């Protein structure tokens, strides 16, 4: 029997400021612009928004700040903060709120000035006394510790990590909106400056500014709006730890659980998915999520990417916008995975468009492999 939330809601509007280097714009400026664009995209007005979902690394009270700036008085709101995966947690929360009548028009939004603020994440009041004495470089050293363990357990190589960065760049070269589009080779990645072994500068995502927003509503209303709806067929979320020292198994993430939940709700499996977006803050992320979401056996993602599967022309297109590694990464990237999935389902992606995409999977990560969220979107044909 079909899950009661399957296909009951749809993403009907998307907004992306594409302002990756925007001096003089605050995180709230980016967010507001994205919100306006997303509402215009679906022909709705700011006054229609009665469900507000947001998280910002620069605001401890994001819902209050954003509602004030947008001039809205939501009757449902959620400011869950689990790092970059927050917006996919918000999507799951919005689905339930919409289906149960707590709101009719959900706006999920984000904005950041991480690049022009100096390229650093805002310090969160979240001290970690059991890690601080050892000065790990956050967040890269945490991912480096996971990469080292994956290499130890499965024989994954630095060259395979490099192939992830090269595939992302090859996609970015097909995306006029990607921030970095210069050619990139495996040798260039391998000879890039080491930052926290085994990860080099080229294994690390961009640092950009940016703003993103989506509008979600119930499926029956979505059909009356101007854009082709991206139906939300399934979502799943999971949380496993805060700090990397408390991650149960550094070579396996709780994307296993978020993925299984999303597949169960959607009634599909990885074999049905021909386009996916995974949150590639670091090259190791892509390998971990390909495995944990079931696109290959554990330990085999390195071989998969080196065979060209995820690159342009490959049988499993991944991160077709160029990903966090080459398109954009304004601190928390999760909402951008959903936006590219929607654009692929709409057929709006130009040179990077995958033919006949009916199902797309967007997966986001937060903290240091701490929170995981998976969403499966589909066209009307998949309902």
């Amino acid at each position: 029997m079909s899950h009661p939330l399957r296909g009951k809601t749809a993403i009907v509007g998307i907004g992306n400021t594409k302002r990756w280097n925007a001096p003089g714009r605050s995180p709230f400026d980016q967010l507001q612009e994205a919100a306006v664009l997303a509402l215009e995209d679906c022909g709705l007005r700011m006054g229609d928004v009665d469900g507000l979902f947001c998280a910002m690394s620069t605001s401890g009270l994001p819902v209050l700040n954003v509602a004030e700036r947008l001039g809205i008085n939501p009757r449902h709101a959620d400011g869950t903060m689990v790092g970059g995966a927050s917006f996919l947690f918000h999507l799951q929360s919005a689905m339930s709120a919409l289906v149960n009548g707590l709101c009719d028009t959900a706006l999920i939004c984000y904005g950041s000035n991480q690049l022009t603020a100096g390229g650093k994440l805002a310090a969160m009041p979240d001290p970690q006394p059991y890690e601080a004495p050892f000065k790990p470089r956050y967040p890269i050293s945490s991912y480096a510790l996971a990469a080292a363990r994956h290499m130890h357990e499965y024989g994954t190589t630095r060259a395979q990590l490099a192939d992830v960065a090269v595939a992302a760049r090859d996609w970015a070269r097909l995306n006029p909106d990607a921030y970095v589009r210069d050619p990139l080779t495996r040798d260039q990645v391998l000879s890039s400056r080491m930052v926290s072994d085994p990860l080099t500068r080229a294994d690390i995502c961009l640092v950009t500014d940016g703003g993103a927003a989506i509008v979600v509503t119930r499926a029956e209303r979505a059909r009356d709006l101007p854009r082709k709806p991206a139906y939300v067929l399934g979502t799943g979320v999971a949380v496993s730890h805060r700090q990397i020292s408390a991650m149960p198994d550094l070579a396996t993430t709780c994307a296993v659980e978020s993925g299984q939940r999303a597949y169960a709700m959607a009634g599909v499996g990885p074999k049905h998915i021909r386009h996916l977006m995974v949150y590639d803050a670091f090259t190791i992320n892509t390998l971990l999520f390909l495995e944990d979401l079931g696109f290959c056996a554990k330990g085999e993602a390195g071989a998969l990417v080196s065979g060209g599967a995820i690159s342009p022309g490959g049988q499993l297109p991944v991160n077709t916008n160029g990903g966090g590694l080459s398109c954009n990464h304004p601190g928390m990237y999760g909402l951008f995975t959903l936006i590219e999935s929607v654009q692929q389902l709409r057929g709006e992606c130009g040179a990077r468009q995958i033919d006949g995409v009916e199902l797309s999977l967007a997966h986001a990560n937060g903290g240091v492999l701490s929170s995981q969220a998976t969403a499966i979107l589909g066209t009307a044909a998949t309902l």
Partner: protein
Amino acid sequence: MATDPRFDGPGPDAQYLQALNEGRLMLQHCEDCASVRFPPALVCRSCGSPRLTWRLSPGAGTVYTATTVRDKAGDYNVALVELEGGARMMSRIEDVPSQEVRIGQRVSGRIVAGDEPYVVFTLADGAAA
């Protein structure tokens, strides 16, 4: 006011730090499922039980994973060490070049005293990856 006596006394972080300051590495053992807990907390992470007992750890363990942080002032090691019994903690492996730290090496801990004491490790005699 009648508080629950099971939770009387200093909190788990304070008890851990106090023991380190007295030269002892103490870890919490669950009386219900036998898992070892680190960092300290009020409940067992494996089974949710609040019945945790402090026991002295000999500080012996193995390197679970490690990285070298490349800093302008010099490279340094950051490692996760799995202590015998199962608890895992972030630390560093000292007295060996960071590049020579390998997953699986046997290590032994020592306490660095101070306002916020912590545990570092050195390679155990005859340790090999």
